């Protein structure tokens, strides 16, 4: 066996690896939407054109298209063929790590007794929370566009429950802090579901 045989064998395994990966990606991608991400990108391009250069030449668009459709996939294929051991190791590690591990979940927000502010009369609070807009861009209902969510929340009341306002500071898992306000159902034996009406990220102010 000569070194040429080794190189040809190495490249052949690389090509096979690439074909398997491309096929796996093709068959695991769900659906083939007629209107894809290109619609969204088209919106972005449209906005950028409005701002910068409305007469953007066609050749520039063709170059962008070639980069996206030809150059980028070709580079990806070349990388896999050249470094297939690394690709296989990376993929195997990804599969290994994903087995038996739970996704990282943020601790779920819950209203506590110390967050409660004041007991509410449901009819009065609904009258107070009707949203209006001079351009008619909101339904004139309690909590406006969030009315359905409110009705679902309200339907969760049981005999003996009451509705309270609450305000709480909440530390986000990935840093930062926010204030959360809204209404909570208070039960004889604890606090039930809550309905958020506001969250304000403190660090952005």
């Amino acid at each position: 066996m000569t070194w040429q045989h080794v190189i040809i064998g190495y490249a052949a395994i690389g090509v096979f690896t690439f074909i398997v990966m491309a096929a796996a990606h093709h068959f695991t991608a769900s659906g083939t939407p007629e209107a894809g991400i290109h619609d969204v990108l088209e919106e972005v391009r449209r906005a950028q054109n409005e701002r910068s250069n409305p007469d953007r030449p066609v050749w520039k668009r063709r170059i962008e298209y070639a980069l996206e459709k030809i150059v980028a996939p070709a580079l990806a294929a070349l990388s896999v063929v050249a470094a297939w051991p690394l690709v296989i190791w990376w993929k195997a590690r990804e599969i290994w790590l994903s087995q038996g591990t739970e996704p990282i979940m943020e601790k779920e927000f819950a209203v506590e007794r110390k967050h409660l502010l004041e007991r509410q009369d449901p009819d009065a609070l609904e009258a107070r929370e009707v949203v209006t807009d001079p351009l008619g861009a909101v339904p004139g209902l309690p909590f406006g566009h969030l009315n359905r969510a409110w009705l679902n929340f309200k339907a969760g009341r049981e005999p003996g429950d009451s509705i309270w306002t609450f305000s709480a500071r909440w530390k986000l898992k990935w840093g930062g802090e926010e204030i959360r306000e809204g209404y909570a159902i208070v039960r004889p034996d604890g606090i039930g579901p809550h309905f958020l009406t506001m969250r304000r990220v403190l660090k952005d102010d």
Partner: protein
Amino acid sequence: MTAQIGEELHYEGRVVTMYSEPLGDYFVLGGARPEFDFNCTALWRGYVGTWEIREGRLYLVRLSGTLKDGGHANLATIFPGFPERVFAHWYTGALRIPEGKMIEYIHMGYASTYERDLMIQIEKGVVTGTHVRNNGTSENSSAPEGYGIGAMTVFPRGRRDIDGE
């Protein structure tokens, strides 16, 4: 996370890009979120919204996205009966708008720094104040002006001709 395509805002005769995503708060507060498809690393949220501040109020006036079932998402998808304009009464917080030359490009989220941030304070959809936060001066005279992203990966899903040509 790749640098993200921002939401668009029409403000005082200008079209600017925001570092804020007010529609995300709508979903957090209980608004029904359709299943958006995403196959672009620069757009994990799966949609781009166009916003407008008119007479001191924040409105969502356009939305473009793709649903998991392949359909196109627009305003009426999320707000039935309001296909043209939606008052963002649910939003409280600051709209952050990067301005001036870029000081540092960071290919992650909205982490790139620009010379200034215009902060528009919103209280339940109503503008309550504005201020400018100065972040320094770009030492590079040819640094790009206005928000942009450096790269993204688009995962192919279907064929589409270039710019409809």
